[in-house]
């Protein structure tokens, strides 16, 4: 096995990097791949919480880098999936505790044993971001359909190109189809027109995400949720499969369902 290193980053904070990392990890692992997630957000770790593994942390990323434990000891196996592991960030240190070359070395050590290494990047464009993209084979940029998030995504895509880690692929997260329909939110096309990169997924706004994040149960475990399905589709596209984009139209009303019954397949 030689793992592909996927870094999830965004520039702006709060757009859903950690949620995306957790859900892609779950989606990839439930498809019989061996997956390890690395939380590179040293000092502000979250991925452990979103995955529901917080209470099992003994060692962390900085312990590995500084030689206080072996790699194996810091890897937390997921309760639900045998093939999913987490290397948590240290909470009591800062980004400068790890260097980009530490990250490259760590990933090289992990590569033979895994199919996927997912790195959850911190927000910003400083050390933590550089640590996260140094080992990347492919970079996913998460943005929201908001002007400020898109602006930061543009900056980050430029920096990824400058580091020769491009071309980055884009995830538009928290798209609200009814707001878009009313003309009150940027459309996916608006975002793509500015950023001009390949789109790998659109994740609709979904309140299940908040609920599941709080419970430590990623939505990708529940394929009935639209967001969960969107993350599963992204995981397939990461594998190189062609998956059509979800139809994000609002839930059908009675009449449109009726019309569909009369004209199946018609839109």
């Amino acid at each position, binding site marked *: 096995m030689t793992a592909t290193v996927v870094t999830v980053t965004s520039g702006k904070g709060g757009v859903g990097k950690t949620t995306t990392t957790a859900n892609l990890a779950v989606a990839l692992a439930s498809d019989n791949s061996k997956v390890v997630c690395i939380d590179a957000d040293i000092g502000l770790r979250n991925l452990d919480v979103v995955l529901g593994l917080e209470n099992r942390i003994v060692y962390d990323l900085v312990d590995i880098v500084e030689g206080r434990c072996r790699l194996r000891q810091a890897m937390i196996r997921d309760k639900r999936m045998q093939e999913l592991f987490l290397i948590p960030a240290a909470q009591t240190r800062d980004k400068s505790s790890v260097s980009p070359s530490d990250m490259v070395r760590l990933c090289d050590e992990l590569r033979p044993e895994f199919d996927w290494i997912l790195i959850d990047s911190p927000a910003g*464009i400083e050390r933590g971001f550089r640590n996260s993209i140094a080992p990347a084979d492919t970079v996913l940029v998460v943005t929201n359909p908001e002007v400020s998030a898109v*602006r*930061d995504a*543009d*900056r980050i*895509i*430029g*920096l990824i*190109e400058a580091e020769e880690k491009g071309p980055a692929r884009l995830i538009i997260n928290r798209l609200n189809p009814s707001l878009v329909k009313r003309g009150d939110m940027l459309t996916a096309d608006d975002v793509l027109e*500015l950023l*001009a990169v390949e789109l790998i997924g659109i994740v609709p706004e979904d309140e299940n995400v908040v609920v599941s994040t709080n419970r430590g149960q990623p939505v990708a475990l529940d394929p009935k949720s639209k967001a969960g399905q969107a993350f599963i589709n992204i995981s397939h596209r990461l594998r190189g499969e062609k998956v059509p984009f979800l139809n994000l139209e609002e839930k059908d009303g009675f009449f449109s369902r009726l019309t569909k019954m009369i004209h199946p397949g018609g839109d």
Partner: protein
Amino acid sequence: MVGENNLTVQIKGVREGLLITLGEGDWLDLESALLSHIDERANFFKGAKIALEVGNHVLHAAEMGSLRDKLSERGVSLWAITSNSPKTEQIAQVLGLATRLSAPRPERVVKPLDTNLTGESAALVHRTLRSGFRLANSGHIIVIGDVNPGAEVVAGGNIVVWGRLRGVVHAGADGNEKAVVCALDMTPTQLRIADLIAALPQKKGKPQPEIARVKDGQVIAEIWNYKIEGGR
């Protein structure tokens, strides 16, 4: 004062016009010494072509440009700058000045009816400038690609964007109000020409190529008119 000027500013006639040698000292002092020298003998200097020997002085584009402008206000044309500093010579070349006395500017020897143009050199970038990128050049700038919001383009001369212009651009940054900005889609965050700043109104509809320039002390952007502009 005159005696001191004579020490710092030496003038002699050469085949191509006048050669002025500047001595050591603070650049601003030298410049004002030179200008007062010229002002004192305004009739002699009127219409003169001068070459300037600046020795070890390292001149910036802005200093060179402003000197050239001040000289031309006095009817004196600066055609060459010779310097011991390669950087200064390079800047002189960017501004279209000669840096060797034996090789006068090509324009000067162009005969009437010669249809070969030399043009001016420009920095060309063939990529999209994303947020955070900055492109600066003392001469002209051409971008093939978009200039996204958060990107910045600063030129001493003109700016041409073959793409969507959405960031901040500053043409004629050395104070040249004749500079223009052209773009296929002119929707900059901010557009500056020389010392003038403009925020263009939001536009709706299909973008059209536009040219922005200073007219009557205001920055005006107009849709590119093939009939007018093409016939220039």
